[in-house]
């Protein structure tokens, strides 16, 4: 038993109540990277919510007199090859990214959670079959799966979300399953069974809440991956479509062509993706460190 799990009889005083600020400082000291990541994440979410207010221009309005205008006071980050304001497009692109990222990861991880826990709980043949099915999906190249999905369902934000979500399911289910396997061995599950609870109740009330840690870790990791995957699909021309502002799309065609003569067209959306994924990953790592009791104590 890890020392940290023992109640300490040494400290007798009840833990001090901390103000939110103190609490924040505490977390910041422990997880400076995580806080930085969190800040980026929050910034992105704010950008997504208030895109209309923040963006100085209509992200789809073409300005025929300002093709690839360099950054300046008029266009902060310049304009793209169609005379659209890059900054406004990045701000609105955050909306697409956040939307795709969250929906895909929450839905994908959510389904994976239920499948993974169910499989672990029932065990035996069900689990065996389930594992093989997951194997199949895992052995299937992710990008190819997404490619085929898009080819079947077509392009557009909703389709892209489906395409990204499906490969997430087995990945989450696997991780959750392995945790759930150990949870299943916990006496409280035995206790629940001995009291005579139904399978659904045991899975949903007693097991699911206890595999939240890997689940949350998966979700935060997936958001970053989803953003990247969406960008890759859009880059391959199979993702979100013009004129919807999306980062990967901004890098497609335009970016490569103008990478030298109008680098802002390529640099800023790339930076936006990098920063966003960077932020979500840092944040995810911090979440993992905080949720994983093995890593929590020194």
């Amino acid at each position, binding site marked *: 038993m*890890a020392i940290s799990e023992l109640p300490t009889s040494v400290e007798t005083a009840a833990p001090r109540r901390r103000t939110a600020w103190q609490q924040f400082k505490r977390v910041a000291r*422990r997880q*400076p*990277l995580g806080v930085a990541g969190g800040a980026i994440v929050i910034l992105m979410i704010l950008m997504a919510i208030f895109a209309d207010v923040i963006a100085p221009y209509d992200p789809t309005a073409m300005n025929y007199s300002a093709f690839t205008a360099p950054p300046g006071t008029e266009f902060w980050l310049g304009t793209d090859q169609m005379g659209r304001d890059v900054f406004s497009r990045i701000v609105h692109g955050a909306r697409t990214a956040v939307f795709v990222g969250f929906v895909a990861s929450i839905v994908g991880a959510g389904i994976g959670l239920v499948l993974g826990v169910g499989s672990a709980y029932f065990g035996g043949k069900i689990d065996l079959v389930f594992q*093989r*099915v997951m*194997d*199949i*999906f*895992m*052995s*299937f*190249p*992710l*990008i*190819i799966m997404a*490619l*085929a999905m898009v*080819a*079947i369902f077509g392009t557009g934000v909703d389709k892209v979300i489906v395409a990204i979500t499906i490969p997430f399911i087995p990945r989450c289910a696997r991780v959750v399953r392995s945790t759930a396997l150990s949870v299943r061995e916990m006496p409280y599950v035995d206790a629940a069974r001995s009291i005579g609870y139904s399978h659904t109740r045991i899975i949903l009330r007693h097991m699911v809440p206890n595999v939240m840690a890997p689940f949350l870790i998966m979700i935060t990791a997936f958001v*970053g991956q989803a953003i*990247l995957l969406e*960008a*890759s699909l859009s*880059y*391959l021309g199979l993702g979100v479509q013009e004129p919807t502002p999306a980062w*990967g799309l901004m*890098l497609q065609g335009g*970016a*490569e062509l103008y*990478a*030298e003569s109008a680098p802002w067209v*390529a640099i800023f959306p*790339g930076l936006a*993706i*990098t*920063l*966003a*994924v*960077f932020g979500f*990953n*840092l944040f995810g*790592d911090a979440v*993992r460190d905080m949720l994983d009791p*093995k*890593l929590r104590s020194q």
Partner: protein
Amino acid sequence: MHQYIIKRILMMIPTLFGAAVLVFFLMRAIPGDVCELRLAGTGATFDPDALRICQQELGLNEPIFLQFFSWIGGFFVGDFGTSMWTNQPIVSEISLRFQVSMQIALMATLVSIVISIPMGIISAVKRNTWVDYCVRGFSIAGIAMPSFWLGILIILGLLVGSQALYGEPWMPPINYVPIWVDPAENLAMLIWPALATGYRYSAVATRMTRSAMLEVLREDYVRTARAKGLVESVIVNRHALKNALLPVVTVIGIEFAFLMGGLVVTEQVFNLNGLGKLFVESVSNHDYTMTQALVMLVALIFVLTNFVVDLFYAWLDPRIRYS
């Protein structure tokens, strides 16, 4: 042990079969077919008979289950079919691409190992110091950067940089030469994508090394090693690392399997004639037979890699070796 091996090999069969079913029906769910694409795809006027004949030639109008079983049946007699797009035997179409992908996967994995293991160890040992933060920042940046973006920047950087330095723009070759024919040319082409991808994939392995090390360093036997009076470097490199390597090996193995078919974007950016590029082309060409063969190949690589990883695991871990 050998029973374990046989069991593992038998376990691959359902996975491969499942992948076969999946890809077969997935491909056919995509609207359009190879003939339509071949004839209509260039926008020219064409003869409707030509379409019918083409479909007939490729057996596309036969009942779908018949198509499936004749394809699967082919595997058992070693007949992998011909590509619907090029009409060439699939084996000859794939072999070169396989070679390219294999080399790039090996090189990238090597780069990734060289980067990730030392960095992961340092990061774990110096946990929560600025060294740790730098390593983590560096490695996460690797995952965060879109690979195509990184690729564009690399090529452009090389072109612009070389022109600025030598007056002549230089870029990596775009034509693959096997390493035994011209090692310099071969490496000049592959080193950049290998570095880019290796760096990218090192991020995952670095994180895994770090967290595995952190976990292992907390183990009782590390305390035992300390109590023996061992030097810290011996404790880390001998007692902790060998245990921490287990999950890292898994991650690297999965990564390797992934690299064999998943480098879609990077291969395009560097014009590598690998499996990933072929994959995308065959999907967009509706080349069913080729996509199917590729998926089977990649799935096979995946299960084989997992198998090798498991064997390696067993080799590293006596608890598995002797069970």
